[in-house]
């Protein structure tokens, strides 16, 4: 009797029941919508201001390419408000996994597609068009107080970074006899990143081959902090991170046999900054190019009018001589990679390959 008359005690129960009912309603309602297909197409879009494109474009991939994709997506959506563009960050490798499973329309990559990824795409019948969208110059940096290592030869960098250097190359004078006898402290990109793949491939001569006793971080800002606070340090990361921290870092010019060349928008674009100037790519699924919104997005990436977006987010845009060739690749649906699935390829002029 007591149990059924005390109204106060029932409130918590009512609260619980309400929650449960709501939850089950949400689940049940959800099941009824399963036949609805993709949520992308919005039939209620009656207003078509500047464009009549609608639908969705799914972009994923490299964190290096992300700022470019973000800028492109932002401007694209201003032009085509009914197209829903989303950009994720799964890394170059993670992006290809999703892309080759057919989950995304476009994937960003900070290196060309690898043989294993080519195989994966082939297995799932995913054909793709490779589009270079920008250049980045991997910048080798030192502490601004370091006055002696303003220019380094590629062999000297190799001596520092190759697997055999582990535990042996510990001071600067082992690199060049006239350098002071100071400890050498190395900072570099994390081993999962496309940046690390490219650097090791360009300097040591094999993707993923390097000594293990250096400070690695996936977050380039950590590397900036490390190099900025340690007089004896040397590190590498994307050019944009150097530009934003110019006052805290010293830049190393690279001597590839033709004299010292510092990375700058000019030397990166015209390919004289070698071997650390690298193209950034997006790969577009061929089947998705039949959708007008994806084709428009792909063309948007390589439109010379949008080159300023690339510069704005800290990368170097493609020279005007290349863009028509890249555009033609979309028109012709030219599938496959100009790098023939070799992964990071160093020192090639993009213009020749296209």
């Amino acid at each position, binding site marked *: 009797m007591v149990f059924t008359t005390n109204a106060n005690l029932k*409130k918590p*129960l009512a609260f619980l029941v309400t929650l449960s009912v709501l939850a089950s309603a949400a689940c049940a309602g*959800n099941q009824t919508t399963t036949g609805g297909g993709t949520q992308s197409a919005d039939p209620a879009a009656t207003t078509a201001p500047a464009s009549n494109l609608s639908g969705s474009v799914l972009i994923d991939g490299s964190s290096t390419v992300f700022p470019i994709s973000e800028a492109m997506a*932002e401007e694209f959506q201003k032009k085509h408000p009914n197209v829903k563009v*989303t950009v*994720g960050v799964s890394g170059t490798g993670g992006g290809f996994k999703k892309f080759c499973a057919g989950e995304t329309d476009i994937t960003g990559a900070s290196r060309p597609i690898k043989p294993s990824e080519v195989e994966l795409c082939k297995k799932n019948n995913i054909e793709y068009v490779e589009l270079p969208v920008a250049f980045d110059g991997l910048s080798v940096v030192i502490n601004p107080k370091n006055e002696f290592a303003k220019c380094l030869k590629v062999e000297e960098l190799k001596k520092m970074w190759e697997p055999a250097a582990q535990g042996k190359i510990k001071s600067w004078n082992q690199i060049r006899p006239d350098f002071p006898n100071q400890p050498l402290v190395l900072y570099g990109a994390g081993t999962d990143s496309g940046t690390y793949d490219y650097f090791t491939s360009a300097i040591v001569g094999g993707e993923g081959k390097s000594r293990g006793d250096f400070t690695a971080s996936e977050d380039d800002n950590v590397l900036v902090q490390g190099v900025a606070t340690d007089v004896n340090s040397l590190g590498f990361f994307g050019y944009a991170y150097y530009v934003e921290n110019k006052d805290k870092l010293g830049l190393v010019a690279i001597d590839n046999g033709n004299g010292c060349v510092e990375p700058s928008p000019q030397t990166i674009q015209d390919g004289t900054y070698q071997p650390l100037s690298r193209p950034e790519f997006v790969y577009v699924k061929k089947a998705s190019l039949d959708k007008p919104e994806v084709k428009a997005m792909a063309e948007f990436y390589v439109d010379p009018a949008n080159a300023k977006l690339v510069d704005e987010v800290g990368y170097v845009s493609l020279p005007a001589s290349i863009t028509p060739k890249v555009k033609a690749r979309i028109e012709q649906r030219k599938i496959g990679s100009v790098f023939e699935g070799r992964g990071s390829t160093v020192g090639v002029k993009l213009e020749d390959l296209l």
Partner: protein
Amino acid sequence: MTSPNQVLQGDSCQPNAYKFSPALPSRYKTDGIFKALAWAAVVISLTVLVVLLADVANDGISRINWNFLTSFPSRRPAESGLLSALVGTIWVMALVALFSFPIGVGAGIFLEEFIADSFFENIVEVNIANLAAVPSIIYGLLGLQVFVRWLFPITGGRTILSGALTLTLLILPIIIIATRESLRAVPSSLRQAGFALGATRWQVVREIIFPQALPGILTGVILALSRAIGETAPLITIGALTFIAFLPPLSLQGLRTTFSVLPIQVFNWVSRPQAEFHLLAAGGIIVLMVMLLLMNGIAIYLRNRFQQNR
């Protein structure tokens, strides 16, 4: 004179009262030392928190304005906002609360009140305690396979629903354990009194035990939700996005929309080269903390209401 042996001898032949009085100053001293240690612990933890908060507030407070809360992310730091991430977090957390409360509390009540001390209960208890310690990324991988791939027809893939279900799994063990602890804290004399009056087990739980335990249960739930709101790893695994410039529709279809959440947006901004983005990240952290405080506030309000109703 004062060698240990002598003290020991004296001890053994003196009456009990003598044993206590001489030690008084040293016991007060121990008391004082312990008090100081406890204070030091409080001061250290609070200092760390205050320094962190002050640093974040110093960086981010200038970035907090209406525009920041109502804009989509942008390549230009000055125009960038976190609307899509904020709305994504609200959607996900509301769903997580909706799913985890009834399931977690229900499971806790069942284990503690209905099958307590059985062999089955012991096995489940050990497993739940283990699950509470599993790294969150594992739940992300589980969610990827189960909710994103197998249950694709229901969840629609990498969607808000998949994210919410994954986080629900993540915090269920915490809620179940908290529920059981709260139920255990209710004196068993109350249960026996209920049974003595002829109530069934269900009536005892519903009318006596559960209302008594509810404040403690709510505290546990809010702690669990606070963990879920800051989780990034499992959501990255199941495919939460980074740039998204539209909001999920306010309908059931919204459950099947792709999404972003605040921690992912903050993580992205922190890793950008431009210092302006780092300030945005600090602003994002402040927004996340305010949301957390709001959630805690609601929970404390509910708890106080239920306590008064008792």
